[in-house]
């Protein structure tokens, strides 16, 4: 299984600066890939393109050589800012239920208390929301997970907890994982390979 992005170029509007140029990247389910780069170098934009959150770009994204299927996108993005990707008028069980029925043992693995399911997003802390955002992306149909600064809002112990749970699922389900982070120490532990975005971005 392979997710490839070929010759990706991107800018937000015709008048703004080009963020990505001729970027080629390939992720498979055999090894965990890390991506790092300076702030504003286009890491999050690339993630959004890979996961289909941005549609207007040059180049192509292919899953095993085919176009990304319509409907549920098997490439799921975990956003850097969980509070921005939750409907404030939905309770947490609706936010999670929109994606899939999460079994109780997984809720526990991610340190989610059952009572939180009945809260509004505004009633949870940033770190608590992030666990929901991670779990929501782990729909059984997900083949590739793009983790954009997944744990920056979590304390060190929770970070270990979330990564261990995610890695366990990624391994069990034979998924691909791209980890985007600024923490080189973290990537050295988690990833098999690390790419510096500026090395593949020709702006």
């Amino acid at each position, binding site marked *: 299984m392979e997710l490839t992005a070929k010759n990706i170029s991107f800018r937000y509007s015709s008048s703004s600066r080009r963020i990505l140029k001729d970027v080629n990247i390939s992720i498979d389910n055999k090894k965990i890939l890390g991506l790092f780069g*300076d702030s504003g170098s286009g890491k999050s934009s690339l993630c959004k393109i890979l996961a289909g959150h941005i549609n207007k770009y040059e180049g192509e994204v292919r899953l095993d050589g085919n176009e990304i299927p319509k409907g549920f996108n098997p490439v799921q993005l975990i956003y*850097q800012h969980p509070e921005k990707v939750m409907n404030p008028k939905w309770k947490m069980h609706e936010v999670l239920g929109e994606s899939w029925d999460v079994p109780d043992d997984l809720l526990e693995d991610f340190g989610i208390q059952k009572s939180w399911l009945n809260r509004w997003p505004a009633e949870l802390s940033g770190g608590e929301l992030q666990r929901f955002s991670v779990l929501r992306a782990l729909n059984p149909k997900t083949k590739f997970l793009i983790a954009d600064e997944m744990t920056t809002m979590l304390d060190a112990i929770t*970070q*270990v907890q979330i990564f261990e749970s995610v890695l366990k699922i990624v391994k069990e389900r034979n998924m691909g994982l791209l980890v985007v982070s600024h923490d080189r120490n973290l990537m050295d532990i988690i990833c098999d390979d690390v790419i510096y975005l500026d090395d593949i971005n020709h702006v």
Partner: protein
Amino acid sequence: MNDLINVSNISISFTQYVKGLNQRELKVITDLTLDIKEGEIVAVLGSSGSGKSLLAHAILGILPHNANLSGTMMYKGEVLNSELKEKLRGDEIALIPQSVNFLDPLMKVSDQVIGECKDEAEEKEKRAKQRAIFEKYGLSEEVDDMYPFQLSGGMARRVLVSTALLSNPKLVIADEPTPGLDEKSVEETLNHLRQMAEDNVGVLLITHDIDAALKVANRIAIFYSGYVIEVANVDDFSGEGENLLHPYTKSLYNALPENGFNLTLGHQPLHGEIPSGCPYYDRCDHRLENCDKIRPNLISIDENKKVRCFKYER
């Protein structure tokens, strides 16, 4: 050094409606004590959901309307009540917020950094100052006319930092100013905090980034489940953490990727279920007889160090 702010024994709870008109109290912070001196950087570390951001919001007086706050806060020897909070916030007390959601999505970046102006002269002055601060933070003139969605995560952070600096504050509350920034930008942000401290500004740095906290802070306070469980010196975070006192602080230190990435099982008590004993009881390896029955007090070990654990009580 003069005391800038003294927070003593504050508790925060929320009134919630459950099933119709039945109300219940949800306790989130209990008995929290912390002080910051002029020109000092105090870092607050702790588990997510332990009430770090709420402390910041309590000092600023921007808690949601269903929150109840008790205990006392003193600012420069004056009682910090809601009128004073309103007068000081955005002026002498400034916030660098955690979430980029604090930016108005429909307003150009430069306009919202400047805020309201009385007349044209003031606007001109503020604009010049904003340009200078943006320049210092590597935000080019192009950024002035951008909307928040056009900013990268790191740029949005720098915009938030700039906003706080515009009013010449005496106390800056930085609620996670560094996540999503690369090493160079983190270093830069920390330098600005250092610079503020040199100008005699007190800084409350709320963060998960232990490395960043160690680089700038004078003292480190560790939060757990709404309590300060330890106040430590920066040097204590070294080696295998043998100088750290509280078991939670030790496991936090040993969970860092560079220190072994070790997992500690369990979770902190739920909101509203603050136990009568030590909040860390369930996860602790060094439990004593009374730990689940009586809550330990925050005791001073020496001039700077404090801990809330029976192991150190005599």
